[in-house]
């Protein structure tokens, strides 16, 4: 019996030895989105190491697994990460239930009143829970918001001004598609989920409608919502066929190949438009704020935020890194590397404006942009809404039917969430 106990404990020891971490000095583990949005932070984390003496460990994760890993880490407080990068629609879910460290006490401890007023308010508000005035659980790092891309050369040739309303967008799309061979007037994406919803929200808002009302209940039963969806489908007639399965890649393939004249788009695609190795439209794309209709046009935000998981064992070191990375000099360096800032002063820096010609429009869009609804159940609501927006565009559900079903499903999601 003693012999078997010995063997048993030996095998157990072998198993656990493989799992225990090696002892080390100060170290921060940063979970970063693998993609253009994470590139600047990755480089910043590398730069931080020699200056601070803190060992930086970078974990790069593709978009959807970043959310999954962050969620699991926060739920079970593993302490695997000290800093996580979050897409802003995820934030209400990740911040709920004290899963992230509140930053206000840390600022107080450091003798500072809070983030300085140079941060763009739209971006900073995204880091508060409940939105927009609650406690601060993060700092904004990437100042993404949508704005409008259009072909300046085609607009000039047909005597069209930059579109200020969706009606003007539709008219320009008709005009250009009718006159230019091989060019579609518009391009959008209506693949179910994030794609369809992100492209539809600005239209929905500009028609005076909304997905959720001020009380948080769905309000897709209003006539304005139906009007907005009907308009999207009309615009779809001037979009390349198959757009109900398009994502950002297809939208931008059409713009880069010069086969579409306009679209809603994101900052990460700007550099490709003027890159001769990828683009047939170098210098021909102009940028404008989001068109309006009944209401002034407003883009959706897609900021990337930095937060500290409650399970982190290096909260203070993580907070120091957060402040360093989002401070003006570092954000300027990040902007040089192509990361849209979240500080007004960096957006207005003359040298940067000279280098990035879309900066003024980006700033204007971001300052007036709105987040997608701030609810912990956003992923589920977006999924269902996306399915029905996509179905309506594909013609397999009528506008009324699609909105009615979406309304009912969203209400059911909320009922279940309340019961949880």
């Amino acid at each position, binding site marked *: 019996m003693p012999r078997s106990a010995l063997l048993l404990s030996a095998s157990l020891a072998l198993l656990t030895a493989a799992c225990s971490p090696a002892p080390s000095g100060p170290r921060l583990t940063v979970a970063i989105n693998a993609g253009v949005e994470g590139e600047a932070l990755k480089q910043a984390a590398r730069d931080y190491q020699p200056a601070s003496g803190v060992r930086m460990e970078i974990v790069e994760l593709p978009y959807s697994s970043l959310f999954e890993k962050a969620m699991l880490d926060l739920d079970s407080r593993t302490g695997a990460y000290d800093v996580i990068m979050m897409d802003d629609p995820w934030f209400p879910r990740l911040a709920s239930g004290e899963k992230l460290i509140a930053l206000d006490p840390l600022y107080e401890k450091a003798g500072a009143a809070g983030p300085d007023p140079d941060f763009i308010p739209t971006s900073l508000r995204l880091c508060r829970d409940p939105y927009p005035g609650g406690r601060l659980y993060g700092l904004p790092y990437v100042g993404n918001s949508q704005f409008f891309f259009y072909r300046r050369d085609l607009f000039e040739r047909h005597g069209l001004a930059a579109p200020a309303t969706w009606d003007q967008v539709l008219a320009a799309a008709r005009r250009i598609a009718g006159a230019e061979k091989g060019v579609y007037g518009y391009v959008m994406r209506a693949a179910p989920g994030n794609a369809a919803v992100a492209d539809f929200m600005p239209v929905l808002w500009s028609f005076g409608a909304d997905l959720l009302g001020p009380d948080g209940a769905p309000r897709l039963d209003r006539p304005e919502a139906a009007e907005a969806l009907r308009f999207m489908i009309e615009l779809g007639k001037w979009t*390349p066929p198959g757009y109900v*399965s398009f994502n950002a890649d297809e939208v931008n393939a059409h713009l880069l190949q010069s086969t579409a004249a306009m679209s809603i788009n994101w900052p990460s695609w700007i550099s490709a438009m003027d890159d001769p190795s990828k683009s047939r439209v170098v210098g021909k794309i102009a940028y404008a704020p989001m068109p309006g209709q009944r209401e002034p046009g407003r883009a959706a935000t897609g900021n990337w935020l930095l937060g500290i998981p409650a399970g982190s064992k290096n909260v203070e070191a993580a907070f120091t890194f957060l402040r360093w990375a989002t401070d003006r000099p570092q954000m300027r360096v990040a902007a040089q590397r192509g990361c849209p800032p979240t500080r007004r002063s960096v957006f207005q820096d003359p040298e940067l404006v000279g280098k990035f010609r879309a900066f003024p429009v980006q700033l204007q869009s971001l300052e007036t942009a709105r987040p997608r609804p701030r609810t912990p159940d956003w*992923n589920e609501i977006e999924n269902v809404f996306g399915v029905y927006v996509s179905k309506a565009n594909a013609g*397999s559900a009528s506008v009324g039917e699609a909105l009615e079903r979406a309304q009912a499903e969203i209400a059911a999601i909320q009922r279940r969430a309340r019961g949880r």
Partner: protein
Amino acid sequence: MTARRSEAGWLAWTAPALLVLGALSIYPLLFAVEISLRTAGGYGLDHFRRLAADRLFLVSLGQTLLYTAAALALEFALGLALALLVNREFRLRRLVRAVLLIPMLLPPVVVAVLWRLILNPEFGVLNGTLRGWGLETRGLTWVAAENTALLSVILVDVWQWTPFLFLLLLAGLQGLPVEPFEAAVVDGASRWQVFRRLTLPMLRPVIAIAVLLRGMDLLRVFDQIFILTQGGPGFATETVTLYIYRTAFRFHNFGYAAAMSFVLLAATTTVARAFLRLLRQQPA
């Protein structure tokens, strides 16, 4: 004394394997059962009741079964036809056999990305070729149209996995004894009679295994559809596995996802048992 010692030794030597099995298989399974029954107030069948009323789940279950049945039928028919063709001596036989297996050797994700490009309505090779033949392709958007999306993902599956059935069935054919076939020819049996009365019945066990393996795999299809359509357009190609993935990892509702997994498991087991029973019956 010796008996007890050897028993204890047996326990010690198998402990690592048992620990790994317990930690990686048995514990997660029990945990899944537990969370599928956990509710806000304690334990109950809430998740399963919600499933019965969840339109999206029922649609995805129906689509999964349709996908499995259609892809399996096509893959079996084509795989058997190819196996019969290659099951004789001809020049370049080895080469043909190797080439036929290529699709199966590619990772499903790669296949899906390739087909996404091939099926692109504007830039894709398929519509490009059709246009070259003078056909109108404007309405042909394959994975992007509600009425062709499911068909398209089925055809991609057929392209990739027919070789799997081909391979198993060919191995089965080559393992058959020669004598009965020679005797049949001597007796003047027609080719159809040989196929119907000899080949098929003798191949029965191999067919059973091949169809069963592929069928179970089809029921849990994920990668190709995730890349090709993400379940769209609308809900046209959503399968149970996609819905489970979304529920667990995007909506973070592991209990409901576990309940769906058990329903899928029950469906897989039922189909497999029914199929095996069918095959065990003697041919009429």
